[in-house]
């Protein structure tokens, strides 16, 4: 039965292959669709992201963070779907806005670290020599810095910071691993014939890097960025949990979870911290699943699709 199924699949592949070759994106997509868990994860993440995006447009953050003396610590009810916290704030609203903020920072940090890491990595790998040497020493240097400590010191030292500034300080330390990864792939890539040919034909370095090498790294980039996204959600939530995350009045998943540090809330008011905890867990698991599936897709031997 299994054999039959497999052979069928191969046959199908062969048939398709006659017509056209798959582009990198199609391979990624097919892998996602074939991996049931990853597909469900993708749907889940999309629903959450779109849902949070849409609902948070309707909600007003200023209203959500309003302290309401008449509804402190209410359990979930028809009026407050997820109850209220110790300041009478609607936990559902806090969850949505918090998820939006956390996702936003994670995405922003991933995007920024991605851009910086890819640019420096590819330049470093492509040119090699002194440039490579210099950039990689900078990377080495950044890697030995105690990242978390510096972020915490920054947050303590600067009394008023915005979400953007917070993202930037996180970005400062998290581009290095991407740069390193991209560099090592570029090192391999630049030895390939197409690069050599391109160089021989007199194509400018700029064009070779961005038009020819970069697209060939696209699947690697997507995989790395996806996995980084999950890591960044975790980092932001962790920092907020410790009280060194977002500015005080900005809800985030981490701040919701951190209210569980109060034993009263941990024991008696599960509705304040549980939903956010579950959401973080599911989001990170799902994004990881997607990332793993994409990673497999980049390696022909591991592919399922």
């Amino acid at each position: 039965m299994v054999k039959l199924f497999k052979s069928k699949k191969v046959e199908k592949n062969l048939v398709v292959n006659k017509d056209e070759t798959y582009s990198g994106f199609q391979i990624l997509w097919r892998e996602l669709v074939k991996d049931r868990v990853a597909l469900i994860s993708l749907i889940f993440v999309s629903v959450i992201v779109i849902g949070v995006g849409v609902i948070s447009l309707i909600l007003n953050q200023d209203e959500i963070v309003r302290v309401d003396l008449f509804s402190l610590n209410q359990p979930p009810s028809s009026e407050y779907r997820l109850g209220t916290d110790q300041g009478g704030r609607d936990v559902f609203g806090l969850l949505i806005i918090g998820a939006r903020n956390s996702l936003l920072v994670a995405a922003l940090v991933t995007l920024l670290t991605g851009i910086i890491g890819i640019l420096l990595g590819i330049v470093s790998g492509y040119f090699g020599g002194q440039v490579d040497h210099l950039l990689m020493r900078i990377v080495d240097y950044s890697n030995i810095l105690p990242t978390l400590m510096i972020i915490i010191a920054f947050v303590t030292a600067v009394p008023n910071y915005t979400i953007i500034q917070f993202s930037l300080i996180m970005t400062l330390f998290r581009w290095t691993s991407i740069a390193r990864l991209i560099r090592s792939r570029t090192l391999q890539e630049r030895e390939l014939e197409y690069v050599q040919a391109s160089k021989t034909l007199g194509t400018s370095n700029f064009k070779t890097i961005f038009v020819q090498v970069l697209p060939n790294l696209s699947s690697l980039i997507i995989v790395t960025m996806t996995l980084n996204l999950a890591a960044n959600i975790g980092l932001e939530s962790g920092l907020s949990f410790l009280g060194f995350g977002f500015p005080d009045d900005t809800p985030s998943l981490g701040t919701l979870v951190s209210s569980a540090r109060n034993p009263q809330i941990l024991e008696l008011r599960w509705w304040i911290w549980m939903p956010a905890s579950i959401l973080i867990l599911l989001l990170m698991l799902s994004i990881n699943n997607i990332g793993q599936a994409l990673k497999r897709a980049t390696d022909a031997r591991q592919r399922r699709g």
Partner: protein
Amino acid sequence: MLDKEEDRGGVKMKKKRYGRVFLGLMIAFGFMLTACRNETPEESTSEDGSEVEAGMETDGMYSIDDFNNIKTPMGEAIEGGVLNFGLVSDTSFEGTLNYNFYQGNPDAQVLQFFDEGFLSWDENFVYGQDGAATYEISEDGRTFTFTIRDHVNWHDGEPVTARDWAFAYEVIGDPDYDGVRFGADFLNVVGMEEYHKGEADEIAGIQILNDKQLEIEFIRTTPSILTGGIWTYPLAYHIFGEMEVAEMSASNEIRQNPVGFGPFKVETIVPGESVTYVRNDDYWRGRPNLDGVTLRVISPATVIQELRTGGVDLVSSFPIDQFPENEALSNLEWLGIVDRAYSYIGFKLGYWDSELGQNVMDPDAKMADVNLRQAMWQAVDNQLVGERFYHGLRWEASGLIAPSHKAFYNPDLERPPYDPELAKQLLDEAGYTVNESTGYRETPDGEPLVINFYHMSGDDVQEAVARYYAQAWEDIGLQINLELVEFNSFYDQVGEDHPDIDVYAAAWTVGINVDPTNLYGPITPFNYSRFVSDENTRLLELGVSEAAFDLDYRYDIYNEWQQYMLEQAPVFPTHYRANVTPVNNRVLNYGVGDGTGLYWYDVALTQEETLAAE
């Protein structure tokens, strides 16, 4: 979608793929970017909040009158035992371990076990004759002669002498003194002013008669001398005598190896975290019942866990919002008293001039307009905050004299009612009009007005209360910038007149002396609002004048003073507090509050192990 993109693509294959990388990125992040806009026009909730939610019951309120203040004995005392004391604080204690230098309450909690003052007081806060020293008053009421008891010795064996007592006055009065104890009470000592200015080498009014006898002559006799107007904490001359005054507070003798003459000796200190004490067999009242005490800083977040599992027997304070849910714990008894304290909101109106040693008002201060201050007061509903957040165990304050001072407390002072509409009206009339484009009020000069509100960070409830205040002020159109600052740096910044502070929420634990001069007088650094006025000074002086020995007269003066302060509103009182504190059932002879006649050396235990809840 991708395919279509490819069809429409440019000339070269490679170019198309380059474009798609970014398309992929845009898809991945685009929706999040759009989701970040949060300006939504939705406005639904009603402003009046008059409908009471169904879920919140109106009972569940407590009254401080229902609490006992002495522990009910449960069993026979055993020999010795170690008491576990929890110092509840979300930060470490500073560790300035000397009564002459300490500032914050956490340090005082550490101090109480190993040091004490010479004089004790009764429940009316009048000095009694059963302390480590006794006193006699001359006929004109200006000269006090103190006699220190024979067996009062420092922990290192040296006797506590009159020299030590006089030395404390000399150090606190010294121009280089960096603590906060100097104030009007000291200036009332004959010759102190000259000494403080460096014009005299000695304090003329303080005479050491012999090793054990000290005479202090005061300039004016006032009723407050006997209720906290005497500095009763000696400073060991044989230890500090050679030291520069400015270096004392940072010295090892205060930070690491402090001595006192209290019932317990300090054995080890882990700075900021814990202190272990052992019994002082040489204690002047007699041998303490306990073998020792272990003091440990515990966070307000874990205090109930510690109590439940028997980690601590006693705590320095208990977060009142956690009381209702833990009322019934089987291993604890809850004691309660009206706390000698009140919370208040203060407005920075000037600065402390350390050269002149006095408070100076700044007419250009952001909060200088009394109407603005009054309006901010009217905008907050303290009654409701007390009921909702504190279950009635904090209640709206009526004035600047706490109800614990029964003889002077007046619940019927006139104060602005809670009325946000009136507050808005008041601001409009005072020229603080709303700028249509920002939606916030501006100063009468048309300058933008952003008010920085400093609040202590701490437990969740405190933060919610801070947000409530900020929000209530935003509701009347003021732009508020809320800063939550941790306890130690909060008082540092407030005390140093940090230029960013406009409004701050703080609390005073008041001394046994009802006289508020030390908190609101013109020459005391504790007057954090820096409010000074002739009328204020006049009333404060009348309150401690000779005429004020007449209780009715003094009561009237303090009424007048409170009323004046409520009108000027350099600070406004928010809440009086009940002090509800849990005690493990194995503890004997323990009481909270003043004049219980129970001291730390009386405290005993009924068994070796702290009881845990069933």
